[in-house]
Each structure stands twice: as C-alpha cells, then as structure tokens.
C-alpha cells in the first residue's frame, strides 16, 4: 500500500476512476506553467531534493589539514489541497449517476494548480523557490489595460529576448484578466487578437491562473526547470458516515537556469 492510503478509503473502483478522471479534467487546463517549462520526473515520493551541483565551504573541519564543503540542494516542497466528497454522491455514481457533485474536488484542483503556477511564475520565498517573473533580468514591460496595445508590448518582449540571444519559439502566459481581455477583443487589424499574438510569439498563449499580468518565455528548453517528486495524486485522509476526506498532493522544486529567458509584463 502506498502512502496515499487509497486502499483504506470507502470508495469503490468505479468511484476512484471517477475521482481521478475528474481531477485530470480540471487540472490540465489550469496547470499553465507545465505548458511552458521543462518538466523532469516524477522521481517518487521519497525524492527529497534537487541537486544544484554547488557546494558551500564548511568552517572548522574536524582535523587540521582538512578542508570541507557541503553540497547545496534545493528541497522539494509538498503541496496538499484537502477536500471532502459526500458518500451519498459516490454511491450515486456507483449506481450510474452522471451528475455526481464533485464540486469540492474541482475547487481543490483549481487551487493546487493556482498554487503551482504562482510558485513557478512569482516564486515562493518560504520554500526557497525563485519564480520566472521575479528572477527575470530583462526590463519589464507594462502590459496596461488596453488590449489593442498587447501586440506591441509582446513584440517588444520578443525583441528583447532575441537581442539577449535567447532563441524561440516563445510562449505567452496570460493571467486570467488579460486572457479574458484578449478573448473579448475580436479583431486587430482584421486579424483576431488571439491569433495575432500567437503569430508574434510563435508558440502557445496559455491561460495562467495564479499569474499576475503576463510573461513571455522562451520554449527552447533548459531555462526553467520543474522537478517533480510525486506528481499530482489523490490520497485518502479520513471518513465518517457522511463524507470522505481526501486530498490532492504533489511534491516539486522549481529553479530558473536562465534569468534572461523571460520578460515580465506586469
């Protein structure tokens, strides 16, 4: 039995299949960072740290004539989003109900995706994660509220990346507000704004809950490194007569190898 303790849950195989499928369906659209960065792993639940290949001198070696250095690593962080599912709804699903209420799972899936995106884009100092936006060595370009001007700003960001020798293709991550603005702007010079922006970056436009503003990232690889210990999974915590307490969980680290490979558009 794994640490997720799924065998202890009062959930049938049909129920688990339903929960896993629902979680996948809700997570994949929201896991924006994974559409733009390098993903390594999963290396398993017991994988605890990312090798940084660096050392730090250690003072006061235990004997004379000896020097010491300690390996530096980036510890993985565990994210967990608890939720509760009604047993009556699971029983209904077992009987073939197509409309079982899995709202709490949907909310947990969204929240853990937002947390992963926010950690990757904006960093998480308490977990020693530096994000894409805050680590960028490129001058940021204000996105503003006027969607009609987005192509100009994005083109400028692409030009800055090219000038820094960072090759494409590039991807455009858009926070929820700017993304909605782009969708609502039908035409730009006779061309849908969405398509116009895609043409400029040469890669995907990604709806990115958890990102404030937008960012243009190189997709050439090797610049933004996400290391997965345990990939997202549903585990069991507890249950009573009415509900089952579950959680979505993952472990990961993130680091930026090339700070100039992204431009922030706050």
């Amino acid at each position: 039995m794994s640490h997720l303790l799924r065998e202890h849950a009062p959930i049938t195989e049909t129920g688990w299949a339903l929960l896993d499928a629902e979680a996948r369906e809700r997570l994949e659209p929201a896991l924006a960072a994974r559409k733009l960065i390098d993903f390594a792993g999963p290396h398993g639940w017991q994988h605890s740290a990312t090798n940084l290949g660096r050392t730090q001198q250690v003072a006061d070696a235990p004997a004379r004539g000896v020097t010491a250095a300690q390996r530096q690593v980036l510890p993985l962080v565990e994210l967990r989003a608890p939720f509760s599912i009604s047993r009556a709804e699971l029983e209904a699903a077992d009987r073939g109900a197509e409309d079982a209420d899995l709202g709490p799972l949907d909310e947990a899936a969204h929240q853990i995706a937002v947390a992963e995106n926010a950690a990757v884009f904006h960093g998480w100092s308490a977990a020693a994660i530096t994000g894409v936006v805050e680590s960028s060595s490129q001058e940021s370009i204000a996105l503003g509220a006027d969607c009609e001007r987005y192509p100009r700003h994005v083109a400028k960001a692409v030009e800055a990346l090219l000038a820094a020798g960072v090759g494409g293709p590039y991807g455009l991550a858009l926070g929820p507000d700017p993304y909605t603005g782009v969708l609502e702007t039908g035409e730009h010079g006779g061309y849908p704004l969405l398509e116009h922006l895609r043409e400029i970056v040469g890669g995907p436009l990604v709806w990115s809950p958890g990102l404030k503003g937008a960012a243009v990232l190189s997709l050439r690889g090797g610049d933004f490194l996400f290391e997965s210990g345990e990939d997202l999974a549903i585990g069991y915590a507890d249950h009573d007569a009415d509900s089952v307490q579950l959680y979505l969980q993952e472990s990961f680290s993130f680091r930026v190898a090339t700070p100039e490979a992204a431009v922030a558009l706050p």
Partner: protein
Amino acid sequence: MPIDRLTHVYGGQSINRRVRELRQAPRPRSTVGPWQYAGVGFDQYHEPAGELSAETRTFARLCTSLTEEAEAIGWYQQRLSIEPDEEARAIMHDAQGEEFKHFCMDLEFLLRRTPLWREIAQGILFQDGDIVEHGEAAEEEATEGEAERGAPLSGGESLGIGSLRGVSS
C-alpha cells in the same frame, strides 16, 4: 448469441467455460502461494493480492481476460479448420466474432489505462508495411516521449499528468 447457449453443439462445454475451469483447477501444491485458496481462481495475480492496489488488481483481471479471449479465438480457429458441418461452422463463426469483440474491449480498456502502451499500439495497429519496423519505431518514440513528459508507467497511483508541453490552453 451468448456462448453458454452453444454447449450442446460442442459436445458439452463452451470455450469460455472450459477456460474458466482449467484456470480454477487444483494446482500442484508447490505452485499455490500463501495468498491463494485451493480451487479459487486467483492465479491472475503474480504478486500477493493484498499488496496490490485496486487499480492494479483490475488491470491484472483484464489482462487475464484478454488472454482467455485470445485463447478462445485460437481454439475456435482450430475447430473451424476441421468442422465439415456448415450449420455448426456458422455458429462457430458467430461465436468467434463474440470473442473478437471481447478481446477488443479488453484491449481498449487496458490501453486507456496505460498511456505508454496506447502510444506504442497507435504506432503499430492498423498500419501498412513492416510490423517489426513499426514496432521498434513506435516503442522508441513512445518511451522517449514518456520520459520527456515525466508521465509514470502503469500501476502508479498518480494522475499521470506530467508535462503539458504541446497541450493547448
């Protein structure tokens, strides 16, 4: 037509029933593990059933079912090759068609639960040309892609999401 209704045609037993009986027949003592009960068909598990997840047990059951369907198809093929009675042959053809359907349903279930297997199958099934070449190419392409995406192999309990590079928003 349900295969169990054809027992009078084949002299006493349907193929599926015979398969089940053979699989449940008492085994030599040395082959019965501590997790097995005499006369109960638990031999689709190669490892102690209590240590396997529900997902893995289901996976193993369908693998066993797939094997049984393939065996039944082969047995019908042999019977058809020697049966001179046209009416009996027609029934056997019909019954073999049932086994084709069962085999395909089992296979589709397993492929849906095993992305790597599915990807390799997509490179081999329903393709013209050299089967071995397609197999080698499909395996290489799929395993490289799997590693790049970081998706787990079958039997894991994660959601298997991994990298989403190339997935549209």
